[in-house]
């Protein structure tokens, strides 16, 4: 049930160091969110099954799985990698990790996140932003509170 009240999701900014494969990358992007192992496994299983569907724009991936009750609350990481990570041969350096306990919470986060990744906010632009600029930008993502 909608309350019309929103809380800001504080993005967690991380810098990924050194070369790594996509599985390790998924782990590192999700680790700060303290998601259950089952969530991380679901994300990896889906990438293996469907290919890198998580790549939103060239060089940018949304690391996301199904809504899962064991994810205690909605959370988001923003990760910048100094080395490209390859998903099925496609190079990615900018990552957004997401989790949420319910489909409704998940969709509310996506609705706020989507406009922040359009237009000029492509990988090249976001990679030039300072940490503070990235945090300010992604703090615009809100989550509707449960009734």
């Amino acid at each position, binding site marked *: 049930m909608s309350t019309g009240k929103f809380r800001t999701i504080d993005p967690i900014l991380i810098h990924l160091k050194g070369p790594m494969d996509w599985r390790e990358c998924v782990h590192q992007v999700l680790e700060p969110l303290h998601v259950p192992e089952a969530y991380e496994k*679901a*994300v990896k299983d*889906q*990438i293996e*099954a*469907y*290919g*890198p*569907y*998580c*790549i*939103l*724009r*060239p060089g940018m991936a*949304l690391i*996301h*799985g*199904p*809504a899962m009750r064991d994810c205690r609350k909605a959370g988001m990481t923003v990760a910048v990698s100094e080395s490209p990570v390859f998903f*099925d041969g*496609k190079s990615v350096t900018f990552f957004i990790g*997401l989790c949420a306990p319910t*489909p409704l919470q*998940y*969709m509310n986060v*996506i*609705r706020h*996140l*989507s406009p922040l*990744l*359009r237009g000029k906010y*492509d990988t090249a632009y976001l990679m030039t932003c300072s940490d503070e600029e990235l945090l300010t930008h992604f703090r615009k993502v809100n989550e509707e509170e449960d009734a």
Partner: protein
Amino acid sequence: MISIFCCCGSGLGSSLMMKMSAEEALEKLGASRYEVSFGQSSAIPFSADLIVCSEDMAISLHTSVPVIALHDLMDENELAEKLKAYLP
């Protein structure tokens, strides 16, 4: 009425983003008779006339329904350009 299904692996993340983009693109194109839904690629509805997904997802789909495969999921111009071909 054209029924468009946007899909991704989880059925909640990028598929919803594509739905939002598709609705905006259809409005800009002046389309009036359409419905856009979203979900997992494993649950394509029988009523779907058109599927929208990423290039990578398109490779793994086994369907007779026409597929729009997007290079950049956040590029409304790419989606609008590809949707044009399917509008009456």
